[in-house]
């Protein structure tokens, strides 16, 4: 637990001192969403119809934009090597890193959703569902993205490859979350969706770190 907290604290300090890296994906999120009215037309009705899908896909892409933050620095300055040699539990290290990433990337996205929901004319119920669904899913996004980040950390330019590897894995949660938002918009019951999203989160928390840790060991194996 101590190792988890120390690593989390270290990571947060590092991120907070390079805030522009954290803010860029968030700006990307807002910019991408803003392009849709320009591409589709300003009609509120049309925009509110496409809003859940658009906002969700933008969130996925923004999360992927920030994936580089997770392991690249530690890999290049030798810290990752030190962690592996030290014999400390790599799984705990991974969980701490993912938590830090979620706090710096996923959580801010959730906070931005009401803002972008406004410009896409999302109604109250749908907006609520959007916030809840993104809150539940963003840790999963960080976890699954971490797999891609860890597999490509040894590559100089892994950014786009991470997206190709991870986006198919995002399909189930994308489908679930947007369905939940649409259900909320039509006043249907959303409890079932919440349980499914929680299940997805639990499954990711248990399984993804294994793949991430294995990939990190591969990265320093050179």
């Amino acid at each position: 637990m101590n190792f988890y907290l120390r690593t989390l604290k270290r990571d947060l300090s590092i991120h907070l001192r390079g805030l522009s890296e954290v803010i860029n994906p968030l700006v990307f999120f807002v910019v991408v969403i803003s392009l849709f009215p320009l591409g589709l037309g300003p009609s509120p009705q049309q925009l509110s119809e496409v809003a859940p899908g658009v906002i969700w896909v933008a969130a996925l892409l923004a999360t992927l934009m920030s994936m580089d933050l997770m392991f690249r620095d530690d890999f290049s300055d030798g810290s990752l090597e030190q962690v592996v040699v030290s014999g400390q539990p790599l799984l705990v290290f991974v969980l701490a890193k993912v938590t830090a990433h979620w706090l710096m990337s996923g959580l801010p996205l959730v906070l931005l959703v009401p803002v972008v929901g406004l410009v896409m004319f999302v109604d109250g119920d749908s907006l609520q569902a959007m916030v809840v669904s993104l809150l539940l899913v963003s840790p999963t996004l960080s976890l699954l993205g971490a797999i891609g980040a860890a597999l490509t950390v040894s590559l100089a330019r892994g950014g786009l490859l991470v997206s190709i590897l991870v986006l198919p894995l995002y399909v189930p949660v994308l489908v679930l979350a947007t369905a939940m938002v649409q259900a909320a918009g039509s006043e249907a019951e959303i409890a079932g969706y919440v349980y499914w999203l929680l299940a997805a989160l639990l499954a990711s928390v248990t399984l993804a770190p294994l793949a991430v840790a294995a990939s990190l060991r591969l990265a320093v194996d050179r």
Partner: protein
Amino acid sequence: MLKWFHRLGSPKTFFELSSKWHPWLLGLSLLSLVSGVAWALLFVPPDYQQGNSVRIMYIHVPAAILAQSGYMMMAGAAAVFLIWRMKLADMAVAAIAPLGASITFLALVTGAIWGKPTWGTWWVWDARLTSTLVLFFLYVGMIALRSALDRQATAGRACAILALVGVVNLPIIKYSVEWWFTLHQPASFSLTEKPAMPAEMWMPLLLMVIAYYLFFFTALLSRLRNEILDRERDTDWVRKWVAAQ
């Protein structure tokens, strides 16, 4: 049994054994493919609903089936590689990925061709085609990762991890896409939801499926043999074999 398994895992042994299997496999697969296609095109009666365009099913469905089982095979080989460090298994993973991708692409294209006379459009986002598309992306990801990691010593293990991650997610993705489709179009025609097929229709289909499997293994064998020759090119037995060609 396990000893035979390990013996087979030696690239040299496998290469020698497969030299004998290969021509037989090739012959069998061509034979079954030709007869299957002939049966499908000439002897199967036209469907009461779709007319003659149903014949493309005999190309599309086996491709879709093989696309999926190809990924399972790749994941199986990946698991073997990670557990037993068998080099041949890593070569199998490398060989199946492009094969699987091509067959998935074939499934997509024939699915689209089948769609045109049926729905009037070249593409439809139904459950089957959509999950086949995602499967295609998974294959492409495998190919992309391997080529990005190039000749790094850890490329094999990294791709193996990705294959296992993919295979765990595959049923989840399929299920979620099917569910997604029922949400948006509850009462639509689906490519696979057909009333029970009479024997004169599913028998040629079965033949085509078998033919595709045979062809897949033939192609896989060829690719594997190439991969073996490439990776083991500095060993004596390869040098001798090449000299003897």
